[in-house]
């Protein structure tokens, strides 16, 4: 039972990491506000289900749409900014979401949070979601969209000379990322069954970014593996909770110095590749 729970939590966070991977890993957009999108997804789904009495699948869809729409709205003023300012503005927006959720107590329960959601999300749904999202991200990564992402990350000016509409491209990335993140939040609400505004603050957003970096900017597989290790490790070693972040910091320093491309560099675990390797043996 304990292991199942650990696996569930780890997988939930992995979805969030995947959302961040597309924008931070591939496109180089650093947002400290992704935690805000997790909350938005979680609260949208919870409110839609509990207060509006909508069926669960509709509530999930609403969370995704809400994430995408807010991503779009926030993207309009922020994505033209220089990257460092984008980081600051998203940080503020994330914290604004937190404050708003606290303030809108009638709708969100304020600091008491929301509880009483039925357990609609189990491990199968989470894992299927991971597979599906990974499939989408990988499809994007290996075709034009992914190339454009990396081009924009490496050199925006040169990218625009190649005919890439940098702003529009970042917008698409931000929308997709936010939608995935909000979806992860919605799953979280119906699996953990309790949400409160302080669950996903900017530290949590920062952690998602760090995991992306440690795992490897060019490797979806690496990011998934790193996320799985980090979050399950945390559950197993609750007693050294504080040391978890110390260890992570140490790993980050080592990775940045010795493997700047991330632990897994550009490695991808593809079914075709794995198969062909065994064939050769």
């Amino acid at each position: 039972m304990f292991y199942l729970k650990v696996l569930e939590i780890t997988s939930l966070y992995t979805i969030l990491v995947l959302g961040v991977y597309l924008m931070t890993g591939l496109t180089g957009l650093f947002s400290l506000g992704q935690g805000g999108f997790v909350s938005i997804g979680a609260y949208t789904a919870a409110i839609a289900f509990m207060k509006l009495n909508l069926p669960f699948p509709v509530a999930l869809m609403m969370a995704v749409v809400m994430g995408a729409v807010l991503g779009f709205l926030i993207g309009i003023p922020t994505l033209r900014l220089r990257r460092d300012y984008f980081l600051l503005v998203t940080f503020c927006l994330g914290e604004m979401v937190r404050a708003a959720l606290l303030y809108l107590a009638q709708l969100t329960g304020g600091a008491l949070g929301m509880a009483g959601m039925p357990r609609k999300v189990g491990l199968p749904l989470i894992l299927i979601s991971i597979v599906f999202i990974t499939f989408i991200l990988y499809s994007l990564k290996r075709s034009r969209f992914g190339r454009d992402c990396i081009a924009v990350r490496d050199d925006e000016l040169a990218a625009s000379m190649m005919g890439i509409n940098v702003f529009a491209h970042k917008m698409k990335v931000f929308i997709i990322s936010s939608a995935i993140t909000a979806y992860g939040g919605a799953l979280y609400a119906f699996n953990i069954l309790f949400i409160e505004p302080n669950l996903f603050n900017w530290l949590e957003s920062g952690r998602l970014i760090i995991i992306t970096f440690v795992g490897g900017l060019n490797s979806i597989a690496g990011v998934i593996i790193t996320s799985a290790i980090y979050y399950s490790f945390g559950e197993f070693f609750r007693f050294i909770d504080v040391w978890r972040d110390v260890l992570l910091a140490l790993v980050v320093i080592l990775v940045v110095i010795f493997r700047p491309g991330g632990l897994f560099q550009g490695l991808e675990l593809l079914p075709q590749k794995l198969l062909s390797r065994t064939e050769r043996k």
Partner: protein
Amino acid sequence: MDVLRIEGVSKNFGGVTALVDFFMVQHENEITGIIGPNGAGKTTVFNLINGVYPLDNGRIFFINQDITESPAHKRAEMGISRTFQNIRLFKNLNVLDNMKVACGWKVRYSLWEEMIRLPRPQREEKEIDEKARYFLEYLNLTQYANQRPDNLPYGIQRRLELARTLMAEPKLLLLDEPAAGLNPKEVVSLMEMIKKLQQDYNLTIIIVEHHMELIMKICSLIHVLDFGKKIAVGKPEEIKRNESVLQAYLGDGA
């Protein structure tokens, strides 16, 4: 036909005047050179042509269309392609993908089709792949296809940038100091390459360069800039003998 017409363009950076009242007409299928001492505003001309930053005054026409207000990516789509003085390849993409990026805007499939891998994106990706390999072959770069540009010798990187510009099938090619950092042998082969490109693909080319031999040999018209002002324009032989050009390069005592 005029491919490019620049009418009275000026550009200031803060208090520094980079370009003053610049006029230029570029005819089709010709190779034109822009020369001048360091800081004369040569690269600024390029940056204004493909929209790196907005201009202060004047207008720019590309094939009779006013592109003064067009964003950079639109100009790339219209057929203006360029290389950079300090090579700007995407270092996290391999050589083949660097090529492919340059014609990404041409694809007709949508994001949704791409997400769930419908046949159309796959088919178009295959076409792009073939095209990229074709141009790599054309400039003898095939052996580097799967390498990262960072690992390649300087001369090869320059050639790759040139190959990349061809991917978009441009009408106007802007080469910003293509010979910088090349050894004499590489410069000779570069000259041949530029001429060959120009003939094979009916390109119109503008070159900014310090390498006089290259400019004099392959350009049919040369513009000379000094401190943001055009001080001379003419055929290579005329420029060689022009008083003010010699003065700008060598000082008053010359």
